């Protein structure tokens, strides 16, 4: 049932996007009508709002949509903002999958540090939107799209066998699972060597980035 509600909401969104693109002067009217329709849908099916499936589906839809926008938008700045939306969606997935500490790390490290780096570089280089979308020419473009579709089909085929299995109720909820204590315990015992190697990697990356970006260019 929640799946149908989600599909109906997505249909409303697609209708709104179509009006927005093909009849921009009717945007306000269409927005009012479709918004009222969506509200009525939610009010009638309010029970579905309480189900986890509905929210997971909604977040997944937003994640896929924002990932597509990252790839197809000509302006790199807009791509970065959509990537941040995508990272937040994945952080929500981490919360649903009981990885609370990783969800916090995702927002702090990815959205807080790495994406700020991207924003700074785009603003520093003063990149404008590409005129038209610069994509690879001819065989590489179609080959990439074809291989991408084939890859999705392959992975879906691998997953499909388990999709029709009966729903398995997870075991007891363990509040310690996914918390910082357990993760730190593993990190400093079983994976200590990998942890130290990661610190060496970070130092190397830091020195490399500074040298690479500071080097004077002989013209």
């Amino acid at each position, binding site marked *: 049932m929640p799946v149908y509600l989600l599909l109906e909401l997505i249909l409303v969104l697609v209708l709104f996007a179509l009006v927005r693109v093909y009849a921009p002067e009717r945007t306000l009217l269409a927005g009012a009508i479709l918004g009222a329709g969506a509200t009525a849908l939610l009010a009638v099916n309010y029970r579905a709002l309480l189900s986890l499936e509905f929210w997971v589906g909604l977040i997944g839809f937003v994640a896929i949509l924002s990932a597509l926008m990252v790839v197809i938008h000509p302006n790199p700045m807009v791509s970065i903002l959509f990537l941040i939306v*995508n990272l937040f969606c994945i952080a929500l997935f981490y919360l649903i999958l009981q990885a609370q500490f990783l969800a916090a790390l995702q927002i702090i490290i990815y959205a807080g540090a790495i994406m700020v780096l991207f924003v700074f570089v785009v603003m520093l280089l003063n990149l404008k939107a590409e005129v038209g979308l610069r994509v690879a020419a001819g065989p590489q473009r179609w080959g990439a799209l074809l291989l991408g579709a084939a890859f999705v089909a392959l992975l879906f085929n691998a997953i499909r066998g388990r999709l029709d299995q009966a729903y398995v109720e997870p075991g007891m909820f363990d509040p310690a699972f996914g918390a910082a204590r357990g993760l730190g315990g593993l990190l400093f015992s079983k994976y200590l060597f990998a942890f130290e190697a*990661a610190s060496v990697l970070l130092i190397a990356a830091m020195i490399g980035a500074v040298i690479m970006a500071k080097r004077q260019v002989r013209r």
Partner: protein
Amino acid sequence: MRIEFFLLIAALLFAIGCVGVLIRRNAIVILMCIELMLNAVNLTFVAFAHDNQSMTGQVFVFFVMTVAAAEAAVGLAIIIALFRRRLTTDVEDASLMRW
């Protein structure tokens, strides 16, 4: 919650990032698509960690995040160096090692 749905989302995200790397010509967008792929893999790790009730998958996500941070810093430094020399971030203009 069934994890197959998360695996499906992760597969789609990975494929979108993969296609993005192959078709876009802007080096910064290519780096972002790589981040997209790393995130898809992270989501798979966390889903399987939840399924098996084992924290090892989450430790690996931690390491992937470390590598992603290092990769983004060095990649952006290379893009800045490229921009200083060629005044472009288009990968078509850095074709010295192309065969």
